[in-house]
């Protein structure tokens, strides 16, 4: 257990700080390593939980006197974490959630009903009585406890997301349906397994080359006694006419309602649009990001091309360019419904959900 007396006579508080820094460094190292194509070492749900737990520790242990200081500290840590792995957007999203929590708790402590007035709006432009810059300098005694309690609530919410989504499965999946999915998504797996308890249906999984995560998905589904078929990506369009619904997961939901999902998803979405098959996306709220799909440099992640063209093909390698992108962009027009832990929503409603989760001033960390 912990040492009470240190050889170099440090205060026990400094020990805790060193422990916190160690945890953050370990987390950052994990993030950096999780860049290979087979996906990060942990699922995005666990990343979100780990980030939130770390931020709670930072809130508890760091020295701050006002909400403004705390927000600066969180922003600093957030910038470091997002810089370690820019494609893992859940980290950034959790930082923004915590910042919004701090703003809300501060407003509540001040007793103002500013919760509704957080966003810029025409109404605010007309009625505000001064270029008031809210600088969060006031000190409140109970702010720390309130913020930590709110973060605990957030953690409970995160724990329950997969179950909340899976609970909605029976409304969307009916008997004798043929469902298509792409690659491997833990959320979709739980969703389908939950429906399989009461309904019999057939699942077609596109293997999603070159990482072929579809194989693992198919194995897991068949263990739950769901009739599964694995198809090659090239067969997606051919098979689509027999499919009733397409249910997919995603890595990120963008601010315009589009997706950043595993490569191959755009193909599935276009094939579904062609056959007028509904495309349902199962994505928990922590995947919602305030980014727009314009920054092509930060949008894509490329990994080692040896999955596409192995290094053994030595002769050709000097003559061709080989790319192995990990993500695909799916525009919002191709999506029918988003199923998240707070229920089902249309892609055109995403802007509203975003304004409830994040504050516009925090969008650029």
């Amino acid at each position, binding site marked *: 257990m912990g040492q009470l007396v240190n050889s170099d006579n440090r205060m026990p508080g400094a020990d805790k700080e060193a422990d916190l820094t160690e945890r953050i460094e370990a987390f950052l190292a994990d993030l950096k390593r999780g860049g290979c194509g087979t996906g990060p070492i942990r699922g995005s749900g666990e990343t979100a939980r780990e980030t939130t737990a770390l931020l709670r520790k930072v809130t508890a242990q760091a020295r701050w006197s006002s909400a403004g200081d705390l927000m600066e500290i969180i922003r600093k840590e957030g910038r470091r974490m997002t810089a370690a792995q820019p494609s893992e957007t859940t980290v950034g999203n959790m930082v923004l959630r915590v910042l919004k929590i701090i703003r809300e708790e501060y407003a509540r402590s001040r007793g103002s009903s500013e919760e509704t007035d957080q966003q810029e709006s025409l109404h605010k432009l007309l009625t505000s009585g001064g270029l008031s810059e809210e600088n969060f300098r006031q000190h409140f005694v109970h702010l720390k406890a309130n913020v930590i309690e709110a973060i605990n609530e957030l953690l409970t919410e995160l724990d329950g997301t997969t179950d909340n989504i899976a609970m909605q499965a029976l409304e969307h999946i009916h008997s004798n349906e043929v469902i298509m999915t792409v690659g491997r998504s833990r959320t979709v797996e739980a969703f389908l397994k939950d429906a399989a308890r009461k309904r019999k249906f057939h699942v077609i999984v596109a293997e999603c080359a070159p990482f072929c995560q579809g194989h693992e998905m198919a194995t897991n589904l068949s263990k739950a006694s769901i009739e599964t078929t694995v198809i090659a990506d090239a067969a997606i369009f051919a098979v689509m006419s027999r499919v009733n619904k397409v249910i997919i997961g995603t890595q990120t939901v963008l601010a315009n309602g589009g997706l950043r999902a595993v490569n191959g998803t755009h193909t599935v979405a276009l094939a579904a649009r062609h056959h007028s098959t509904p495309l349902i996306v199962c994505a928990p709220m922590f995947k919602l990001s305030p980014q727009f799909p*314009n920054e092509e440099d930060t949008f894509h992640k490329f990994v080692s091309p040896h999955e596409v063209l192995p290094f053994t093909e030595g002769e050709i390698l000097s003559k061709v360019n080989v790319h192995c992108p990990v993500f695909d962009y799916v525009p919002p027009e191709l999506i029918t419904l988003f199923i998240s832990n707070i229920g089902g929503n249309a892609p055109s409603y995403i*802007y509203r959900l975003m304004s409830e989760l994040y504050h*516009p001033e925090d969008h650029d960390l």
Partner: protein
Amino acid sequence: MQQPSKMNEEELVEYFRTQMRTDPDMASAVAAIRTLLEFLRRDKGETILGLRESLKWATDCLTEVDSSVAVSSGGELFLRFISLTSLEHQDLSRCKKVMEERGELFLEKISLSRTKVAKLCHTFIKDGAKILTHSSSRVVLRVLEKAAAEKKRFTVYVTESQPDTAGKQMADALRRINVPVTVVLDAAVGYVLEKVDLVIVGAEGVVESGGIINKIGTYQMAVCSKAHNKPFYVVAESFKFVRLYPLNQQDVPDRFKYKADTLRTVSDLSDEHPMIDYTPPSLITLLFTDLGVLTPSAVSDELIKLYL
């Protein structure tokens, strides 16, 4: 010292025209709001209801001078501003003081709106991009200036935009900041779209459905960009949001479609060419406003927050 007397129609129109002349960069809605604020200062009414009546009359006078959607939306916004403020303070003289203060503050804030829009939009313009724009819009010009200042290289195609060939002014302004620009015929939009990466237009008014009212030819451009799968971006300040819900081109009120003098002199409008058209929200990708980057469905939310 004698108090300045109440403004009559002539003075009102003269003040408005002077505002537009002294600062050609100012949006017509802003000039209208400034004029109405001055009118408010000089008004001698005793009741708030009387104040509203005279302001409505003043707005009507201004729309007779400049029949654009922007002036109308500026006027309505000002009236809403008066209503909201008068709800808080019942006493007229206190109310007027507060209105004058807030009015000045509002004008200050919206003078910054074009800068905010430019800050949001310029990141969507990538190095080497080819941009198509329509007619002359000061907001689009500001966005392109900001992108050029960020050392991005891009080329611009501007439509000549008959009947007033406003596109040529836009081209001159762009040449002055050393942006390579080509003026194309309005009919050449379909031809040029395959070369273009994105389309950015301004708006005279943003309607409740999320669609826009802009110079004639914008709808055409939007339909063609949809067919070519090119993003169609609209840049507009938030004071251009207007409480209209047109379902098609015929639904747009005649008083916006034609210039003010045409409305006064001509009896049969079916012979005249309209100056504006309506672009439905399904053709618009994103709207950049000083309230943030909005999808067309978010616009009605903003309007509801203000007016209801």
